[in-house]
């Protein structure tokens, strides 16, 4: 397996830019998720790496081979890139075994058996794709991509065609299989929970370029800007005033080590806000959505502003209950 290095890639379609100065670094053996809203250029980036799309500018290097760049454009069939397509793209006229053997040069029986075992499809070799469930097709697609021992594996929205229960199972499975194969992998998704749970590193895309690359817990807890914060999960944004060492907001005044002074934006995840029932608390619960494993409260501050708070199923707080709030984490952004 090899690393992937994309630098300054641009690609536009008839005036509309799909990628602008796209940079991405994928270390050997890691799983990177490329996440962003639709139209942010994720799939185009994947297709550029695979060779299905030629960038207008920029360089892609896989391991120590430049596959596209000034004067170089290696066709897809010589890039040693395994691709798993959104609709799986299994060859409908071939059996599972023939699908998996397709990219293997020379004798393939041993390799096919090995890879099918890896993806948990022993005994499926002679079936045809139309005889498989969505999850099974997904496994075949992965087995087929892994069989020729590619340098890297790319997955385009790999879970979007599965129903919800299968999706959760396949997320774990795909991660297990990729790790077992020691693969360097990039997968594209628009689903933030998928991006956070499957990947080692999350690359967040917006309007054709990467805005933040970091491990899942970091992009979630320390997003680069308010947009990333709200894209990756629920967030509460309040205005605050920063002075040396302190930032004061409608939720209270907190110690703060950043250099910003004056008006700032403070982002707080709902689960970082803890309400305590208090007879004459300053805030009041105005609404509650109960999910079983947790509950989301809407709380009105004395200033009239409303913020969300996510807490466990107990204590059950009702609309009208008065509370005091404690905040255990927050992120300060320059005011926009």
């Amino acid at each position, binding site marked *: 397996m090899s690393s992937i290095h994309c630098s300054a890639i641009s690609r536009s*379609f008839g005036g509309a830019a799909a990628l602008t100065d796209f940079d991405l670094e994928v270390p050997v053996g890691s799983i990177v998720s490329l996440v962003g809203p639709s139209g942010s250029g994720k799939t185009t980036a994947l297709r550029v790496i695979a060779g*299905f799309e030629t960038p207008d500018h920029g360089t892609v290097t896989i391991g120590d081979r430049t596959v596209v760049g000034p004067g170089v454009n290696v066709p897809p*069939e010589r*890039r040693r890139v395994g691709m798993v397509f959104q609709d799986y793209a299994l060859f*409908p*006229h071939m059996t599972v075994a023939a699908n998996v053997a*397709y*990219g293997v040069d020379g004798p393939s029986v041993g390799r096919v058996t090995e890879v099918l075992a890896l993806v948990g499809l022993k005994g499926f070799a002679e079936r045809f794709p139309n005889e498989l469930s969505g999850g099974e097709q997904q496994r075949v697609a992965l087995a087929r991509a892994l069989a020729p021992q590619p340098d890297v594996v790319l997955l385009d929205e790999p879970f979007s065609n599965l129903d919800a229960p299968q999706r959760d199972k396949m997320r774990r499975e795909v991660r297990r299989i990729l790790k077992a194969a020691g693969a360097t992998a990039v997968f594209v998704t628009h689903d933030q929970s998928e991006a956070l749970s499957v990947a080692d590193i999350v690359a967040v895309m917006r309007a054709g370029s990467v805005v933040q690359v970091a491990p899942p817990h970091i992009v979630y807890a320390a997003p680069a800007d308010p947009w990333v914060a709200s894209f990756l999960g629920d967030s509460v944004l309040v205005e605050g005033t920063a002075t040396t060492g302190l930032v004061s907001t409608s939720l209270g005044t907190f110690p703060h080590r950043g250099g910003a002074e004056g008006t700032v934006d403070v982002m707080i995840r709902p689960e970082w806000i803890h309400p305590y029932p208090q007879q004459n608390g300053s805030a009041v619960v105005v609404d509650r959505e109960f999910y079983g494993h947790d509950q989301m409260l809407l709380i009105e501050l004395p200033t009239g502003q409303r913020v969300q708070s996510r807490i466990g199923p107990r204590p059950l707080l009702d609309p009208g209950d008065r509370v005091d709030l404690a905040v255990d984490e927050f992120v300060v952004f320059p005011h926009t």
Partner: protein
Amino acid sequence: MTVGAPIDARSELNEPTAPASMRAPSRRAPWWLWVAGGAILVPVGVPLVALFVRVVGASSEAWSILFSLRTVELVVRSALLVVLVTASALAIGVGAAWLLVRTDLRFKVAWGVLVALPLVIPSYVIALSYLAASGPRGLIADATGIPLPVVSGLPGAWLALTLSTYPYAFLIATAALRRFDPALEEAAAGLGASRARVFRTVTLPQLRPAMGAAALLVGLYTLSDFGAVSLMRFDAFTRVIYAQYSGRLDRTPAAVLSVVLILIALTLILAEERSRGRAAYFSRRATRPLVPMHLERTGAAAGYVFIAILVIVGVVLPVGVLVAWLLRGLAANQTVSVQWEAIAGSLLGSALAAFVAMAAAVPAMILAVRYRSTASRWLERSVYITFSLPHITVALAVVFFSVRYLGPLYQSLTLLVIVYAAIFLAQATGATRAALLQVNPSVEDASRSLGKGAFTTLRRVTLPLIWKGVAVGGALVFLTTMKELPVTLILRPTGFETLAVRVWSAADELFYARASASALVLLLVSAVPMYVLVIRNREFVT
């Protein structure tokens, strides 16, 4: 002269573009796709250009020939025939379609099949059957003792071509009526409009684009037809061109007239292209099934009579006359023996043409579907225009060119097959394109990323997935070539016989029994399988 392709070609501009196939414009097509898909048009395209250069180059001479040939008269005669045939074919086709889609007549599916059946009978066979039925020595006179005048000239050509072309109008109108949303009519009726007003202000405007398309198609067919007008001895463009070509040493007049005919045809072709684009804009899918209109007793009776007459004059009578003449000839001990060499010639020429057309259609449609670009769009367009030009003019252009520059190829089977394949390529591409659109492009991408090049991908993934559609296209080319007349007459090698040529030459010399025998063999060999093909593989053909 042909089934399928004019209707196929319809889908080429209207089909909604698959987003995935649009996503790959940045990739350059492998050069061999262009060679394999485009080369076939060169032997037709270059001679056509050369023909124009030759005629325009000799402009003063050309003008005087145009004048001396009374070209204006010719244009008027052809135009008259086109207008008459178009009007009658449209009236019959739309009327039959309305009866079989919108009313509660019974056995509509069976009637629909019978009404469309003349589609598979070549125009010269219909002409032959009416010539052999009418006249003082014809079948009807024999049977009834009433000496009928012979049906020929303008009325004869009008009749034969109307019967050959109304099925096109019928099929197009049927499709349009099926797409019609009844809610529009109900909305108008709900606003207080009478039935007549609803028809005039809502139904008819909705049908107009389809009718325009059908009119242009029928007009183009009539203008290009050679078999029917020549047997009916009506001096339309094609017949005069052929007479000038075969009867004179100086071929310049034939060349000049060909250029004029090509220009007229091109005007119609371009108009047809535009109308197809617009027709798509108007049509919409019905949101729920149409409620058939109930016909009262008189109305229903009139409907059944109309359909029955159509089936009799379009199918029963022509085939019956051929059978009767064959029996008559056999009874009189005439030589009507089966002409094996003609059958062999038809099969050989058609099979080779089908094979070449399939081989060219696959790369041409991969270019058109997977590598959409201005150039590939022009390739598609050239295929369609080559198909739509009057075939006699294409044949003449090739003759003029090959006599001068291609010595050994002149009147060779190779050249004949190449021209067949080029002019009927549109039929193969229509079906191939439909098949290709059903293949998920990411399957091909998957093959590429698994280390296989474009050619291996074509051989191991794309072809196995589209071969059925390609084969349907090839079969259409095979069966259309079987019926082809003017190109065969002009380009065939000496001694090369086909059933079509035998039907035409025997009928032209009034040997009706012999002509009927060949025509029946031709119908058996081509029409039956063709009909099965068209019915079975609608997804690829219409």
